[in-house]
């Protein structure tokens, strides 16, 4: 029983859902994460290693330790909350996709070898794109295609890396890999695409804002967090990750400030938060790694909460453009309050979940003497509060009154958001429970007077800057626009270059033809006028006769071959 992989439960449910309807289907949807979590909690302990032999391949579907168990609990929790949130959506495609997606995430964290990881890696890609395509617009279909290409490409890198790794070491086990080999780099790029490294992040900021109102909640929970898990297992302590993580934490906040689509703002802030995790993994000490995975845990919940509140706005208003929102607190006070809880959590206010997890990464930076990099991370921390903590609730729910009076969120959405908000506060106020789940033994406690005071100073004065900039009229207004990012390279630059290249080659070919044909013609002409032209061999023969002669020669060869040497 303890060797039953939890993803099997999700996949069975994915088969049952289309066969059922109404209340039964809802019960299956809600019960699956609970049953899976109970199964993991009661039957599955750290230290299991069970392999299956399929087609001469030894596949390890269950390899458990504290790291994989932490993520497994997280994914059960996230899928439970997201399922409640999406309960009123009666779309079989999305329901099945949600189960396969969450199940694949569970499969990936328990995968003990690279081939099993690859299988779930690709299943994550295929199931998640449904949430973008379900939007049904032509734009969403194109976006989904681009998203899928990136995701599948990541899988191709992973498979290539796995095969090279197997060739070099003779083992497919998914343990620490490191960057010492070609295989290591291939797998690193695969993980890098899924965790949205700079320049590889286009799929995220392109795809997530295009998904359905409920779909983005699923999307934000699994893909990048599976990648963070994979990085923590395969590449902990690789110093390059510190610098990649800091870049990820810093550059998106600039885009977030000027972006108008509030779900795209959240997508940028998702990259920013993953940046903190990647940095923690790069530092590689027990404290930093604990910080990275703890932050993944709280991020799934508070980012989910923020995406849910924006999902409610999208569901009720039909868009999430900051330029056309405002004053929604008047008709949806509960959603507003829940959004503020999410905003305080992502900003790492004391007593909220971001505070107890992010501070471990910051403390690890100090311990390892990365003092300049620490300043960058502090900048990123202040920036998070600015764009996600203030901008999201302010422009959606306050700011100028847009005149919109949408109804409060449906009850199931309120329950889901309320659950997430409660968890944000519970983790923030009682961090010992989260800490007890962390994989490495560390003695760390976030609440001391210095830490609380300095964090409050940082955040309150970031808010003061917002107030001041707004009063002075310096704050950039929300504008309907597109901001060029890495996706420009493959959406505009490359297609335009290829187009230009093709035109160049065509004109080059034409001019070469005219340049080459003219002298040949004159040679022909002068030859036909010369005395040589009257000989038989110099005549131009029809192709048919040439084929005939060649066949005769070939038959001669054949006969020679049979009779002379046979």
């Amino acid at each position: 029983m303890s060797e039953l992989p939890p993803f099997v439960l999700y996949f069975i449910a994915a088969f049952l859902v289309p066969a059922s309807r109404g209340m039964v289907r809802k019960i299956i949807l809600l019960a699956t994460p609970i049953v899976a979590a109970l199964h993991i909690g009661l039957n599955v302990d750290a230290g299991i290693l069970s392999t299956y032999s399929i087609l001469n391949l030894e596949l390890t579907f269950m390899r458990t330790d504290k790291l994989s168990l932490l993520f497994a609990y997280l994914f059960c929790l996230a899928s439970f909350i997201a399922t409640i949130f999406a309960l009123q959506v009666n779309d079989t495609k999305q329901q099945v996709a949600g189960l396969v997606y969450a199940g694949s995430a569970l499969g990936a964290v328990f995968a003990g070898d690279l081939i099993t990881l690859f299988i779930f890696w690709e299943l994550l890609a295929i199931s998640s794109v449904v949430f973008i395509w379900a939007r049904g617009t032509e734009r969403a279909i194109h976006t989904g295609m681009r998203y899928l290409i990136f995701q599948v490409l990541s899988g191709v890198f992973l498979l290539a890396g796995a095969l090279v790794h197997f060739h070099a070491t003779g083992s497919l086990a998914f343990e620490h890999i490191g960057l010492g080999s070609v295989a290591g780099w291939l797998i690193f790029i695969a993980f890098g695409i899924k965790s949205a490294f700079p320049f590889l992040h286009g799929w995220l900021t392109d795809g997530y804002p295009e998904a359905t109102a409920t779909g983005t909640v699923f999307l934000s929970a699994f893909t990048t967090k599976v990648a963070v898990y994979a990085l923590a297992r395969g590449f902990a302590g690789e110093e390059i990750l510190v610098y990649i993580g800091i870049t990820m934490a810093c550059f998106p906040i600039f885009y977030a400030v000027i972006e108008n689509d509030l779900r795209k703002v959240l997508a940028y802030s998702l990259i920013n938060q993953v940046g903190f995790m990647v940095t923690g993994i790069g530092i590689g000490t027990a404290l930093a790694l604990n910080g990275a995975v703890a932050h993944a845990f709280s991020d799934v919940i508070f980012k989910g909460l923020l995406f849910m509140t924006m999902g409610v706005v999208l569901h009720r208003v039909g868009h999430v453009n900051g330029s056309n929102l405002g004053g929604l607190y008047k008709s949806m006070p509960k959603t507003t309050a829940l959004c503020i809880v999410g905003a305080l959590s992502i900003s790492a206010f004391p007593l909220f979940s971001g505070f107890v997890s992010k501070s471990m990464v910051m403390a690890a930076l100090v311990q390892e003497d990365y003092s300049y990099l620490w300043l960058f991370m502090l900048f990123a921390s202040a920036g998070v509060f600015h764009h996600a903590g203030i901008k999201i609730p302010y422009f959606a729910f306050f700011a100028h009154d847009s005149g919109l009076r949408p109804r409060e969120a449906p009850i199931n959405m309120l329950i889901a958001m309320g659950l997430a908000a409660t968890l944000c506060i519970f983790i923030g106020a009682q961090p010992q429970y989260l800490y007890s789940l962390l994989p490495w033994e560390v003695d760390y406690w976030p609440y001391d007077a210095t830490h609380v005071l300095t964090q409050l100073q940082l955040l309150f004065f970031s808010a003061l800057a917002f107030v001041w900039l707004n009063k002075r009229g310096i704050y950039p207004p929300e504008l309907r626009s597109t901001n060029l990012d890495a996706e420009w390279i493959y959406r505009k630059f490359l297609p335009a270059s290829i187009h230009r290249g093709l035109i160049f080659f065509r004109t080059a070919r034409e001019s070469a033809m005219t340049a080459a044909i003219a002298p040949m013609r004159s040679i022909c002409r002068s030859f036909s006028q010369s005395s040589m032209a009257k000989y038989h061999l110099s005549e131009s023969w029809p192709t048919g006769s040439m084929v005939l002669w060649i066949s005769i020669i070939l038959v001669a060869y054949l006969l020679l071959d049979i009779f002379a040497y046979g």
Partner: protein
Amino acid sequence: MSEKSKSTHIFDNPRNVERLLKGFYVICIILVIADFIFHRHTTMGWEKIPAFYAMYGFVACVVLVVLAKMMRKVVMRKENYYDE
């Protein structure tokens, strides 16, 4: 009736906004004063500067917004830029 329904929303009254901001400023001032009264333990050189975190938070956000605004000149395009 319309007067009444307007006044039910808390921030429609400018005085409430003012009150909120005043409370906010007071907290900011208290936080800076606390920095001088309370001896916080420091590990890094920067942290020894009085009210370092407060100044850094403020300056960081102003720099962030000003740079982002300048960035708009380079990266901003029409909303349907990619659809054309």
